[in-house]
Structure formats: structure tokens, C-alpha cells
């Protein structure tokens, strides 16, 4: 065997070996990469491309307009109003869902009897589709035949009866109430898991030292839950920034934009006004805002988690 021969064979064996090693990696990853590129990455990029067009989405009349849509967005009062509503949804979601969920988790943690069956029933709203819930609560809020106004008139409080979804001052609040109603059990189960991981000895040691139950809750149990609460806040905030379903079904952003969110505004711009280019601008802006909010809240929550 001449030196030249070995030089010829060694690389080819290596090549064959590396091919054999690479083959499974490729085979295992190709299906996932295919779906993610076609249905997630490509739409993401395409959305930014479409945001530079003036196009109704139907024919071939698309026109490149550069940054015109983005300039329009910067001055679009409706979009900023929608963003404001997203922030309002985030704020009230945190304000109402966290304390109520925490209270219910404490209730379930303390109630030994029946807590399992209560937990199971409390969780039911999370199984419902948003269309089902939206349609149900549209009927519950109905000003004429709805049970809320019916109940108010039965106890002679007709003065409090309102057009819950039709009044611009009330529409967003009415929908937020339903969003909270559906999501509170989720955070409740989360906090309950946190509470049940609380080491019993810690509470007993504090009790021996003369701490009252109230002190134990505020000073020991709640700090123990801190990480869980921060995770919950992050989920609620990010979820609110991209929220769509119940608002779309119950009010479609109305009346007169009173309950409009970024996502419902994007949807109407594209599928009702047929401004596909501008709708894509709204979608792209929404992506940037959600990513920014997610990055900020994640960093905040992570930093605090390590502090504990």
C-alpha cells in the first residue's frame, strides 16, 4: 500500500462516517424544521414584507409604498387606543386575578373537606372554548333578556341595570370581567401547587416561636410563593398583550373602538376593510411590542427569582 492510497481512502471513510453520524440528526429534525419554517418563520418574515405594501389582498394590484404604512401607524389614534386597551387589560388582569386566585388557593389549602371537588369544578371555565364563553356571556349581559339585568330588576335595583356591552364606558370592563372569570382558576391551581410545596416544619417552627397564623401567612408563606406569583404576573401580562378571542366574539372591539385590542384591530383592518398591507403593519408592530414586553417581564421575573 503506497502512502497515496491511504491518503485516498482515509478521507472517504471519514466522510462516510460523518455522513452516517449526520443522517439521524437530519432525519429527526427535518419534519419539525419544515413545519416551523413554513408556518411560523416564513409568516413572520412575510408579515414584515407585506407591511411595506398597499394591497387589498384580492387581486394583483399590490403597490410598494415603503415606510408609508409605518408612518401611518405612528399617527393612527385607533392603534394607540388599542394598545392602551391592551395595557388596561394587562393591568386589571393582574390587579383582580392575582389576589382572588391567591385567596381561593388559600381557601382550598385550608379546606380539607371537599377541596378536591371544589378544585375540579373551579377549573371548568378553562375547558370552554372562547366562542362558547363569548356567546354565553353575550346572552348573560344582554340588556333586555339577560339574567344580570333580570336579577337586578328582581331585587328592585333597576337603576343599576346597564347595556353592559353596548355602553362604550362599560364594554371593556365587562369583557375583562369574563377574562378574569375564566383565568382565575388557572392561577389558583398554580398558587395551590406553590402552597402545598410549603414545608410544614417551617410553619410549625414559626408557631413554636409564637407567630400567629396571620403572621405566618404574610411573612413566611407569601414570600415562599414569590417566584410563583412573579411567573403568574408574567403570564398574565404577556397573555393580555396578545389577547384576541373573547373580545372578538363579544364586542368585536366595539362599540366605537371602546374595547379594541391590537389583535382585533389587525383582524378588522385585514378581513373587513381589506387593507392587507396596513393590517400586516399592525401585526408586525404587535409582534415587536409583545416581544419587547415579554423580554422585559421575563428579565424582571428572572432577576427577582434568583433574589429569593
Amino acid at each position, binding site marked *: 500500500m503506497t502512502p497515496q492510497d491511504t491518503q485516498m481512502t482515509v478521507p472517504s471513510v471519514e466522510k462516510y462516517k460523518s455522513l452516517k453520524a449526520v443522517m*439521524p440528526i437530519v432525519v429527526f429534525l427535518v*419534519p*419539525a424544521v419544515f413545519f416551523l419554517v413554513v408556518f411560523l418563520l416564513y409568516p413572520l418574515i412575510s408579515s414584515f414584507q407585506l407591511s411595506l405594501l398597499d394591497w387589498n389582498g384580492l387581486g394583483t394590484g399590490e403597490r410598494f409604498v415603503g415606510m408609508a404604512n409605518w408612518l401611518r401607524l405612528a399617527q393612527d389614534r385607533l392603534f394607540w387606543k388599542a394598545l392602551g386597551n391592551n395595557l388596561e387589560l394587562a393591568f386589571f388582569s393582574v390587579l383582580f386575578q392575582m389576589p382572588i386566585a391567591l385567596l381561593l388557593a388559600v381557601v382550598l389549602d385550608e379546606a380539607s373537606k371537599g377541596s378536591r371537588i371544589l378544585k375540579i369544578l373551579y377549573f*371548568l371555565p378553562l375547558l370552554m372554548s372562547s366562542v362558547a364563553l363569548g356567546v354565553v356571556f353575550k346572552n*348573560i349581559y344582554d340588556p333586555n333578556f339577560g339574567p344580570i339585568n333580570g336579577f337586578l330588576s328582581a331585587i328592585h335595583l333597576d337603576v343599576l341595570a346597564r347595556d353592559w356591552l353596548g355602553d362604550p364606558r362599560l364594554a371593556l370592563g365587562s369583557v375583562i370581567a369574563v377574562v378574569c372569570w375564566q383565568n382565575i382558576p*388557572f392561577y389558583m*391551581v398554580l398558587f395551590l401547587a406553590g402552597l402545598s410545596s410549603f414545608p410544614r416544619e417551617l410553619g410549625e417552627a414559626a408557631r413554636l416561636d409564637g407567630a400567629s397564623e396571620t403572621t405566618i401567612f404574610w411573612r413566611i408563606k407569601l414570600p415562599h410563593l414569590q417566584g410563583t406569583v412573579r411567573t403568574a404576573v408574567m403570564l398574565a401580562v404577556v397573555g393580555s398583550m396578545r389577547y384576541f378571542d373573547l373580545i372578538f366574539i363579544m364586542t368585536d372591539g366595539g362599540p366605537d373602538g371602546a374595547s379594541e385590542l391590537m389583535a382585533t384591530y389587525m383582524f378588522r383592518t385585514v378581513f373587513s376593510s381589506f387593507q392587507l398591507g396596513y393590517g400586516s403593519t399592525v*401585526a408586525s408592530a404587535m409582534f415587536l411590542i409583545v416581544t419587547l414586553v415579554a423580554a422585559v417581564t421575563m428579565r424582571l421575573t428572572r432577576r427577582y427569582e434568583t433574589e429569593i
Partner: protein
Amino acid sequence: MSSTITSGSSTAASGRSLLVRVLIPVLGLFWLAVTTLPFIFVTMTSLKSQQETFVTSGWSLPQSLNFENYLAVLNGGFWTYLRNSVFVLVLSIVLIIVISSMAAYAFARLRFRLNKPLFGLIVAGMIVPIHITLIPIYLLTRNIGLYDTPFALIGPYVATALPVSIFILTEFMRQIPKELEEAAKLDGCGTFGVFWKVFLPLSGPGLSTVAIYNGIGLWNEFIFAYVLTSTPAYRTLPLAIWDFQGQYASNIPAILTVVTLTSLPLIVAYAFGQERIVKGMMAGALKG
């Protein structure tokens, strides 16, 4: 000094325990009412006739058990929506399970340079708000001729489920002991054999989390189904509520009957496996 503290706190403790004994059940039952009243309202109304809802209060019991609404809805195309939902769900979940477990195995066990960056990129995909992919996917679906078929939904459903599923399964597979893998290799298994005979069977709990979390999400999915299909013959159950709402206009009992019927499959499943479903949904949402 110390005695005053102890006595003070012990009275506080006993005072609280009385308060707690009253407050806990009251709060527990109050939230039970808040949770269940809408469900009771829906069920009761679905058993009424249309005239009855106009003249009686929303909280009155139905005058007689009236199953006409149920018969009307069941004979009015409900089964087509159900069949489409089952078809889309089964096909999507099978694809999600197969594709994400394969990818998870590669990320958990195979060594290659792009392992970490690619995994990080896929996990970052969880942040993408799915609604912003709606417009390009709508255009894509029209261009490849899948618009208004049940197949239109498979691509977006699988893709949106993959990041969280791959994340859950990768975490799970990383914990499978290396020794099992080596033993299988000694027995003559190749990479595919190890995946098929060792990792897949041992990932049962992870796979069930992925199936439950995505299954419930996709069963209830509305907006892609609404945008990518238009004919009732190809639409899924959440759209049944939407379509019937247009069809029945102000017939509230009929609409709430559709709500009851479309929600029933999941509630029945929940009755059989509450713990698993709660756990699956929590795990999925926390990772997402």
C-alpha cells in the same frame, strides 16, 4: 415581655381559627356559585322554548323539559362539525407527537454544533403571537389550494404546537438515564432503534402532557378555523356555535343548545380524568 407576645398571638390565633372556620366555606361556596351559575343558566335555557325566554326570567326553571332544541341542532349539521373536529384533532395530535418527540430526542441526545442555538430558536418561537401569522398563512393556504378544506388547519396547528411540545419533551428525555441507551446500543440498536424502543416508550407522561395540552387548545381553536375554512361542511365544532348563531339569530335556547353540545365532549373527558387534564393543561401553559 415574651409572655405578652405569646398570649397576644394565641388569642389572635384562636380568634382567627373561628373566623377561618366560617370564612373558608363561605368563600369556597361563593366562588362555586360564581363559577357554576353561567353553566346552570346555559343548561336551563337550552331546555326552554324560544317564547319562554322572552316572558320568563333567565333564572326560572324550564316549564317543562323540552329537548326539541337538541333534536333540531343534532339534525341540523352538528355531526359534520363533530366529524371534522375529530379528524383535524387526531391528525394534528399524531403529527405533533411524532414530529416533536423526534426533534426532542435529537436535542436531548444527539451531539451536533447547532444543537443549542437551534433549540433556543425553537423555544423562542413560543413567544410569537399566533395571530400575527394569520395573514401570511391565509395567503399561503389560498395559494397552495388548501383553502376551505380541513387540511388547511393541520399546518398551522402543528407548527404552533411544536415549540412548547419540543420544549416539554426535550426536558423529559434529558432525564432518561444514559445507561438504558447504552444497554440498547449493546443489544445492537442503532440511533433509530434507541429512539423507538427506549425513548418513546419511556416518555409516556411527557407525551400525554403534550397530547392533553395541545388537544384541548386545538379542540377549542377558533380563529384559524374561522379564517381558513368557509363552508360548514369543512368547519370544526367551535365554528358550529358561530354558524348556528347566524342561522338562529335571536333563538337564544337553540344557540345555547349548540354551546352545550359542543362543550360536552371535553366535559365528559374531564369527568374521567380530571387530575390528568388539570396537570396537562398547567404544565403546557407554564412552559408556553
